């Protein structure tokens, strides 16, 4: 990891913002590296979990928000489970992802946000996720018609096996779910 030394007060402000919105006690970390050693995706991260926590302690937040790490994390909760100091690193990742979206995500990881948007759209629309239309929406938004074509074979095989519900369930009283989206987006537009 390369950190440029340009720490000013803005780093401190961002660190406090992270601590406040995540509720995670970052100062407890003593760099034992259990999180990174157990992380199944460490091999593909540009900043390892323990480095990520250390960077926040030091106020180097920009690099973190622009990292691959927060987007390849699979939310498997191994780090959170093993941390001897009770630091909820998996939740910290969520907070960082949300901050990163507000500032604009790195181009190479944009497909993650496209996926979550398609997924949440499906919930908003039907009250429950309709897998087939969600997968098509994701493939199309992510890769256009070519993206859809690439998923076609798998999709057709799943239809043949009866694993695809073709007509979405429309939840009676879905108004309540739509209201949840409206309320949640008031404070934090997504």
């Amino acid at each position, binding site marked *: 990891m390369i950190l440029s030394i340009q720490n000013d007060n803005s780093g401190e402000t961002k660190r406090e913002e992270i601590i406040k919105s995540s509720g995670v006690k970052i100062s407890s970390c003593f760099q034992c590296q259990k999180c990174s050693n157990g992380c199944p995706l460490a091999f593909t991260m540009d900043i390892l979990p323990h480095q990520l926590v250390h960077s926040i302690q030091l106020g180097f937040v920009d690099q973190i928000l622009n990292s691959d790490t927060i987007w390849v994390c699979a939310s498997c909760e191994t780090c959170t489970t093993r941390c001897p100091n009770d630091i909820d690193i998996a939740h910290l990742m969520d907070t960082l992802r949300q901050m990163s979206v507000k500032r604009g995500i790195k181009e190479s990881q944009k497909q993650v946000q496209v996926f*979550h948007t398609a997924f949440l759209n499906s919930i908003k629309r039907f009250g429950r*996720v309709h897998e087939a239309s969600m997968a098509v929406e994701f493939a199309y938004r992510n890769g256009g018609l070519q993206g859809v074509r690439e998923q076609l074979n798998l999709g057709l095989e799943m239809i043949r096996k009866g*694993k695809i519900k073709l007509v979405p369930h429309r939840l009676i*009283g879905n108004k309540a779910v739509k209201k949840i989206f409206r309320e*949640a987006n008031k404070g934090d537009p997504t």
Partner: protein
Amino acid sequence: MKVSYYPGCSLEGSAKEYGESLKAVSRVLGIELQELAGWSCCGASSAHVTNDALASELAMKNLVIANKEGRDMLVPCAACYLRLKSAEKELNSGKPAPIHIKHAADFIWDECGEKAITAKLIKSLEKLNPVCYYGCLVTRPPKITGSREPEDPKSMDNILKSLNAKVKTWSYKTDCCGGSLMLTHPELAKKLIGRLFGMAVEAGADCIVVSCPMCHSNLDTRQKELKQLNGNGYNLPIYYFTELMGLAFGNKSAAKWVNKHLTDAMTLLKRKELL
């Protein structure tokens, strides 16, 4: 016993056979599943990544219904389970919970137990050599799930051993399969499932047994692509634990369930004279 049942979205589609086999097995064991009226999506992984309030409220909506119903709740999907347990923790904040939320395998083992399961055994699974794969969210994080052994869960192992299966021990029970990266980073997900398959074979397993729709989908649908990727072909059937329970209980629909899988799950059972 009557319990609330929260199926979750994937049991209506890609994990249909999990839902069908769970219902069949529950009937045999005397568990009456009462589907939660008007349930909606728990928010799954997309909500907590995107917006904390959204994640909390989507799960909470279902928990409020369940609390009103007043019965313990059985949840077959690991992701739904964790979201609902998180909401439970938030809602009760230290006070005793009005209902218990349990994952399907834990519920069946804890509430029914070995005697009730073996009493229904018709077709012994002694020729099968499975490894049980629990994945991430049934046990982690233990502060939320209350799991006593988050790195070595045993409910599925115990259930299958009661049905005489030669369950293999392995150390990858709760290692992540990358299910949440399946669509966004398929190349990473394939690396993780490749590790699991390698270890399962090394442990002497002829199949993998799961209790999570995402794990199943990831392990079952991506095996072919894995072969194209590195030539290391695996042909490991991935069964839901409820499918094997149903089979052992002599349920005639077992073939129909496992025939829905994309990786051939019929041949092994025929070879072992179970179908």
